[in-house]
C-alpha cells in the first residue's frame, strides 16, 4: 500500500475497480447471450485480469525498493512477495494446461449449464474479492476490527461460492446428464472437462478459505500491525488469484461457444 494515498481514497479506488469489474462481467454475459463473439470475451477477460492484478493484487509492489538491509522486515517481505508470485506463476501453468485441454477436447462447444447460477457464483466470488481488498486496505492502516469484519464477509462469500459450485451446480449438471463420463457417450468429454476444471478451482478456493481462517484467527490474536502484516497480504493476493483464475474459467465453461 503506497502511503502517499490516504485510507479513504484507497478504499474508494477499491470500489471503483469493483464497479469496473462488475460492469465488465455484465458486458461479457450479454455479449455471450446476444452475439457469440469469442474475441470480445477474450479481450474482456484479459482486461478484468489486468485490473485485478494491478489494483487488487498490487503486482507493482514487486518492483518496490526495499533498502539495503537484508534482515529488515521490509526487505524480507519483498522477498516473500517474489516467492508468492513465483508460486502463483507456477500454479497458473496448471490452469493454463486445463484451458488447453478444454480447447482441445471441446473446441467451440460448451456444456449445457444453468446460466443464472453461473452468473450468480461468479458475482459472489467477485464481491468476495472486493471485501478482501477492503480488509487488506484496513489492515494496512492498522484497522484490525474492519479487517476482521471484511475478511469474515469474504470468507462467507467464498464459502457460498464453493457450496454453489460443488453442492448446487454439480448435482444440477449431473441431473442434466453431464456425468463425469462414466460411460456416457452422449456428453462425450464434456463432463470430465467440466468437473476437472471446476474441481481444480474449487480445491484452490478451499485452500484459500483455510488461509483466510488462519489470518483471521491470527489477527484476532493481534499478530498483525499496519507495518507488519505480510500474512494478510499473502492471503489477500492468493484469494484474488483464485478470483483471477475464475475470470478465465467462467467464460471458458459458461459463455464461449455453443451449448450442446
Amino acid at each position: 500500500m503506497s502511503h502517499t494515498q490516504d485510507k479513504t481514497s484507497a478504499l474508494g479506488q477499491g470500489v471503483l475497480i469493483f464497479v469496473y469489474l462488475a460492469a465488465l462481467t455484465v458486458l461479457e454475459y450479454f455479449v455471450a447471450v446476444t452475439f457469440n463473439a469469442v474475441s470480445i470475451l477474450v479481450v474482456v477477460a484479459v482486461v478484468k485480469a489486468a485490473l485485478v492484478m494491478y489494483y487488487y493484487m498490487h503486482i507493482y509492489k514487486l518492483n518496490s525498493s526495499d533498502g539495503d538491509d537484508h534482515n529488515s522486515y521490509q526487505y524480507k517481505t519483498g522477498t516473500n512477495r517474489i516467492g508468492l508470485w513465483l508460486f502463483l506463476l507456477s500454479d497458473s501453468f496448471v490452469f493454463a494446461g486445463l484451458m488447453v485441454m478444454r480447447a482441445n477436447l471441446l473446441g467451440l462447444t460448451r456444456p449445457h449449464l444453468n446460466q443464472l447460477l453461473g452468473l450468480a457464483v461468479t458475482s459472489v466470488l467477485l464481491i468476495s474479492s472486493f471485501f478482501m481488498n477492503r480488509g487488506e486496505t484496513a489492515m494496512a492502516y492498522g484497522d484490525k476490527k474492519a479487517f476482521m469484519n471484511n475478511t469474515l464477509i469474504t470468507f462467507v462469500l467464498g464459502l457460498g461460492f464453493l457450496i454453489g459450485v460443488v453442492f448446487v451446480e454439480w448435482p444440477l449438471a449431473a441431473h442434466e446428464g453431464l456425468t463425469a463420463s462414466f460411460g456416457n457417450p452422449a456428453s462425450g468429454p464434456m463432463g470430465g472437462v467440466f468437473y476437472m476444471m471446476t474441481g481444480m478451482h474449487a480445491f484452490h478456493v478451499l485452500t484459500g478459505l483455510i488461509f483466510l481462517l488462519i489470518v483471521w484467527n491470527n489477527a484476532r490474536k493481534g499478530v498483525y500491525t499496519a507495518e507488519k502484516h505480510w500474512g494478510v497480504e499473502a492471503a489477500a493476493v492468493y484469494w484474488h488469484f483464485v478470483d483471477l483464475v475464475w475470470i478465465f474459467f467462467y467464460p471458458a465453461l459458461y459463455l464461449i461457444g455453443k451449448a450442446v
Partner: protein
Amino acid sequence: MKRFFSSAFSRGLLWQLIGTLAGAGLVTGIRALMGLSVTDTFFFTEPAWVLGGLVGAVSYLFGSGVTADWVKWARGMDTPEHPEEHFSGWEKYINVSLDHKVIGIQYTIVALLLISIGGLFALIFRTELAASELQFLTTDMKLFGQNGPQLYNTLMSLHGMIMIVSILLGIAGIMNYVVPLLLGAQDMAFPRLNAFSFWIAVPAAVLLLMSLVLGGFDTGWTGYPPLSARAPVGMQMFFMGVFVAGWSSILGALNVIATVLRMRAKGMTAWRLPIFVWASVATSIIALTATQLIGLSFQLVMFQRLFGMGFFDPAKGGNPVLFQHLFWFYSHPAVYVFILPGLGVISELLPVFVRKPLFGYRWIAMSSLGIALVGFVVWAHHMFTSGMNEYLRVPFMYSTLLVAVPTGVKFFSWVATIWKGKISTPTPMLFVLGGIVVFLMGGLSGPPNATVSTDLHLHDTYFIVGHFHDTIFGGFVFPFFAAIYYWFPKATGRRMNETLGKLHFWLMTPSFFVLTFGMMYIGLLGMRRRIVDYDPALGFDTTHLILTIAGYLIATSVLVFFYNFFNSIKNGEKADGNVWNSRSPEWQVPSPMPTHNYDQAFEVVGEPYDYGLEGSKYIEFSTSAKSKH
C-alpha cells in the same frame, strides 16, 4: 542405532506407513459401506492405494517435523529466524536442518542412492539382454505379481524415472550447496521451504519404489495412455511418486530464483554473477513452470482410471495425443533442467584449471537462458510418429534444430577458454573434459532425431537410447562427479583420493563410449528400445554382450567412486585451504564453512573469471567486524 531410528528420516517413514494404511483403510471402509469390493490382487483396491499413497506422503512430512515451524506460524506463534542446530556429525544429515549446505549434501546423498538403485535395475535388464531369447526373466518366473517380461518392463520404466528423479535431486544438491556460497548469502531465501523441498522427495522415492511391488507397470517412464490407463496398480504409485517429486523440483526452483534475485552480495550485478548461478536460474525457470504440466497430465490419467473421466479415451471423446502434448511440454524442457546446471559446472570449473579468463562470459550466460526459452517450444519433436497434425512437424523440427545454436555457443566458449591455457588435470578437470567430449557426442547425434525424415526411421530405436545417454552423461553425470570431486574439500575439509578418482574416470569413460556407440550402432540397424528380447537372426548378440560388459564396467567404476567418497570423509588428505587456487569467494575462507557461511560480508569489485590477469580482483572482504549479512 537408536539415534538412527529416532531421526526425522525414520520417524517420517513410520508415519508414511501409518498414513498409507490409514488412507487405504478409510477408502476400504467407505467402499464396504457402499457395498463395493474391498480387496483386490494387491490386498487393497486401487482407489484405496491411491488415497493411501497420498495420505502417506503427507504424513511423512508432518512426521519428519519439517512442517513444524509453519504450523506454529499458522497458529500465530513466532519462531527464531535461525534455529540452533540440535545435531552434529552424521546425525545432522538424517534430521531436519535448515542449513543450505546440509540440505545440499542430503540431496546429493539421496541422489547417489537413487542412482545406485536405478543403475542396479539397468544391470538386471542389461544382463537379460546380453543374449537373445529369455534367460532368467522368463515367462515362468513370478515376482511381485509379474512374470519375467513384465518385470523387465517395470525395471526398464523405473530405471528411467528413478534416474530422472535422482538427476533432479542431484542438480538440486549442487545448486543448494553452491549457489548461496557463490552469492555470498547466509542461506537460501526460504530455508524452511528449502528443507521441505528436500524432505518431500523422500516419500516420493518411496512411492516410486512401491510401484515395483504393486504389480509394476509396463509403459516406460512416459506413461502414455491408453496403455497407462489399464496397467496394474503400480502405475498409480508411479504417477503419484512423480507428482510428489515434481513439487520438490518446483519449490526448489522457486527458492533458487528468489535467492538469486534477493540475496546477492554487494556489487554482484547481473554481469558479475558466477556463470553457474546463471545456469541455475535458467534451469529453475523451466522447473518452476513446466513441471506443473507433467503433474497435470499424470493427474488426468489417474482420474481417468479412478473416475472414468475419459480425457484420453477416444471411445469417450477424449484424445490420447493431448496427453503427449501436455506430457512433453514438461518432459522435453526437463532434459534442459538436467543438463543446464551441469554445463554451468563445466563453465565454472574450466577457467580454474586452465588459468585463463572464461571466453565470452556474457554469451555463455545468455546461452543458458536461450536454451531454456527455446526449450519451451520444441516438445512435439517427440511426437513425429504419434499421428499429431502433420503441419506441426516442420515448425517443431526447426525450433529443435535452433537449440544447437546456444549449445554451440557454449562449445565455442569452452574450446576458446582451453586454447593456449595452462591446463592441469586433477580429477575434477578430467570429468569436466570428459563431460565436454561426451556431451559433444550427444549433441552431434541429436539433429538426426530432430529432423523429421530421419526421425521416422530412428524413432523408438536404440539410437535414441544411445543419444540421450550421451547427453545426460555429458550434461549431468560427468559434471556432477566433477562438482563432487571439486567441492568435496569445501564440504569436508578433506580431499578425495586422486588415484582412485583417476581410476574412476579412466574406467568409466571408455566403457561409456563403448556402451553408447554400441547402442547407436545397433539402433541404426533396427534394434527397438524397451523390449525384453530380440530375434537372434538380427545378429545383435555379440554387440549386446559387449554393451552388457561395458555396463558392468561403469558400475564397477561407480563402486570405486563410492569407496573413495565414503573413505575420504574420514581418511582423506586434509585440505582446508584454497585447494584449486580458485578466485571464487567460497575458496577464500577455510573449509568446511560454518552454519551461516561467511563471517565477513564481501563486495564484488571485479570480473569473476579473470584468471591469469595481473592485478585483477573479484571480491574484497569488508574489514568491519562480523556484519549482519
